[in-house]
């Protein structure tokens, strides 16, 4: 559904204005019977070059070098980034995270979401157009497709032609390359969860475990299917971000726009002809902007939810404008306000400093700072104190009262640590058992502690006490845990 009123022309889709009289709004003879389902029309995006295309290739290279390269990095004789699900240890360079540190993942997701809000409010679907894996892999798969089958028109001709040896060869080669690339992607993905060097050796020996095999092939299959076949369908029908990003748009958001005032009425013309004399606008109706569009829309119909903001139409239109000798910018990054009021780019950029953007920015900065500080101050030691529940308290020699606690000590450093345990909170309280515990790197050990108080040191009931656990090697690594000491009747 959409609203469209003559004075509020911000509809995401371009629809002819409704007649004032609802009864006349729908002439009956216009009616067509259509299916509730549409069959997909294959899109053959024409390859394009230009500023935004270059930027997209830059982000493709950066994201892919990071994705394929990171698991191969080494750090202190282990993989720099490794999410060891089986041992529940997450190694990120110098950090060793436990499942208890999941709050940092929450922080990361909050930062990612806020960054998405911010970038979308400022410049539309930047994520979709430049960084989203769906876009990036589609771009790579399209590049392979183009290298094998040729550009748009060649591909269309090939698909329409009857099966021949050459067609079969081309298709076979394309799919082989796609599958190879997809498997490499799946392999890299699994390499984040099991050491990638071992994985490589296992793959070469064809002796991967059943789950490793499954995930390599499943992730590979998803890459192959999404980037090779689903493509814009993922953005149009499956992706929730595509839809809710529209909610972050306002009239000062930079989006890909078509300058309707300048372009219309569109139409072909001779190069020498004066468009003004012919009564034509700047749009030569070459339809190249439609041909290059990866989602197959016509940007001249205005902002549409299918538009992923990749800027391919800007690049190709600028090229055409240069050829016919018109000024560039018939299709350009602009805002709805800027379009309506004829603002310059500088004026539109100034509007970026609006409350929505400032609020997003400040929340993003505060949360990023909080996560950084918390990560920086994180103690690589975790302790859980568990009271013995069966035996609450007992009387031992000389009438001393004893409680038993189990301390679960988690060493989040990569060296063996000796921890000294102290107890305080009641007069004369002391640990009667071994108060030093040695824990191997990234291991968990539980220590049974007998804590005693002298007779009469505390009244009957529960008393708060605290355990201080400190590493022998580094006084900075210390944790304080609260517990309760029970004195029986």
């Amino acid at each position, binding site marked *: *559904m*959409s*609203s*469209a*009123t003559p004075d509020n022309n911000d509809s995401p*889709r371009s*629809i*002819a204005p*409704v007649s004032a009289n*609802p009864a006349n*709004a*729908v*002439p009956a003879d*216009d*009616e*067509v*019977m*259509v*299916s*509730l*389902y*549409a*069959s*997909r029309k294959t899109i053959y995006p024409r390859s394009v070059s230009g500023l935004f295309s270059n930027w997209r290739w830059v982000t493709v290279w950066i994201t892919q070098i990071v994705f394929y390269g990171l698991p191969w990095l080494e750090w202190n004789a282990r993989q720099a980034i490794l999410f060891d699900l089986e041992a529940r240890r997450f190694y990120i360079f110098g950090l060793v995270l436990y499942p208890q540190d999941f709050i940092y993942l929450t922080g990361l997701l909050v930062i990612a979401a806020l960054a998405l809000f911010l970038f979308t409010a400022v410049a539309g679907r930047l994520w979709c157009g430049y960084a989203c894996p769906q876009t990036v892999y589609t771009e790579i798969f399209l590049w392979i497709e183009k290298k094998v089958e040729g550009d748009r028109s060649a591909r269309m001709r090939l698909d329409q032609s009857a099966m021949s040896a050459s067609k079969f060869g081309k298709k076979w080669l394309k799919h082989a390359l796609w599958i190879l690339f997809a498997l490499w992607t799946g392999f890299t993905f699994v390499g984040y969860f099991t050491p990638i060097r071992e994985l490589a050796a296992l793959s070469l020996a064809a002796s991967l475990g059943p789950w490793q095999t499954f995930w390599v092939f499943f992730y590979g299959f998803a890459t192959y299917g999404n980037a090779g076949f689903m493509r814009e*369908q993922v953005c*149009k*029908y499956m992706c929730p971000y595509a839809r809710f990003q529209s909610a972050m748009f306002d009239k000062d958001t930079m989006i890909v726009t078509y300058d309707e005032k300048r372009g219309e009425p569109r139409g072909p013309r001779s190069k020498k002809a004066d468009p003004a004399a012919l009564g034509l606008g700047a749009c030569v109706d070459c339809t190249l902007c439609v041909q290059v569009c990866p989602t197959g829309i016509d940007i001249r119909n205005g902002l549409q939810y299918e538009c992923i903001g990749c800027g391919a139409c800007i690049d190709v239109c600028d090229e055409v404008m240069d050829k016919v000798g018109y000024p560039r910018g018939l299709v350009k990054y602009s805002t709805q306000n800027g379009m309506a009021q004829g603002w310059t780019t500088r004026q539109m950029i100034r509007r970026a400093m609006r409350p929505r953007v400032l609020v997003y920015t400040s929340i993003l900065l505060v949360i990023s700072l909080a996560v950084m500080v918390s990560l920086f101050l994180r103690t690589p030691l975790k302790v859980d104190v568990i009271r*013995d*529940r*069966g*035996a*609450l*308290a*007992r*009387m031992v020699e000389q009438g001393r009262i*004893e409680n*038993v*606690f*189990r301390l679960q000590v988690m060493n989040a450093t990569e060296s063996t640590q000796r921890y000294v345990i102290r107890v305080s909170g009641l007069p004369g309280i002391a640990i009667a*058992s071994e108060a030093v515990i040695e824990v191997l790197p990234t291991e968990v050990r539980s220590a*049974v502690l*007998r804590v005693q108080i002298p007779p009469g040191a505390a009244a009957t009931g529960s008393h708060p006490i605290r355990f201080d656990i400190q590493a022998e090697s580094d006084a900075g690594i210390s944790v304080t845990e609260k517990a309760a000491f029970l004195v029986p009747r």
Partner: protein
Amino acid sequence: MSDFTSDFWNIYVAGLTLVSIIACLILLWVAGTTRAATVDDNTTGHVWDGDLREINNPLPRWWVYLFVITVIFALVYGALYPMFGKFQGALGWSSQGQHTAEVEKVEAAIAPIYAKFNGMPPEKIAADAEAMAIGERLFMNYCAQCHGSDARGAKSFPNLTDQDWLGSGDHAYIKATIGQGRVGVMPPMAAAVGGPEDVRNVANYVLSLSGSPHDAVRATQGKEKFAACAACHGADGKGMAAVGAPNLTDGIWLHGWGEEAIARAVNNGFNNQMPAQAALLNDAQINVLASYVWGMSNKTGN
């Protein structure tokens, strides 16, 4: 197995499931063949509030195929697994069967680990780091609730780390205790001892046996009444391992120390029970666990 006496609910549930799946197919077929009216500006022609129009935004056709796949999946699933009433499915799967299979798998996996400790003398098992790590985990799971994480017990739950055993305390005794449990019975002895005063006197005498603070006059008077206790605890009060009667002279008080606690024991007796673990642990596990417990009071070499 059906929980109902008649087959009505079974047929009702199976029928309803099948009808629902078929209804889904019919719905998909109807929706797939229905044509809706639109006008050439790609709206359905419906206008509300003067300017609100409904755009025809069709789902892609492959989306319908996904629905069809779910229906096929449901039917295949229903044929293989229990889905239609009490029909077991071609694979004969049951949650109970899966549990049994998983337990068997784990038992087969751990059997070789335990196997190497079978027939090994307890001294050697207690000195084996791997066996002791296993023993500790078993102890924490099955024993620590009563005997405490440090195995030092609590009132009425024996300390397992001292040398004081109610029975012989050797490996076989501990194994039997874990497997079959123990019942420690002391009958109420008040009548045999005499009146309440006699009970107090006996209590003081018992305290005197371990050199605990006591009333010497009462202890002297209680000495002859102790004859009633001597049948089990022995004339010298040193207990009798064969019947599990505790030594009263060693200053270890399982059920509490002091005149009051002892008088309560004489008056009411005890029926102290340790539950059998044989249903939870197999022989090989009990063997390792018994060695672990044995090792706690028989530390050698340190």
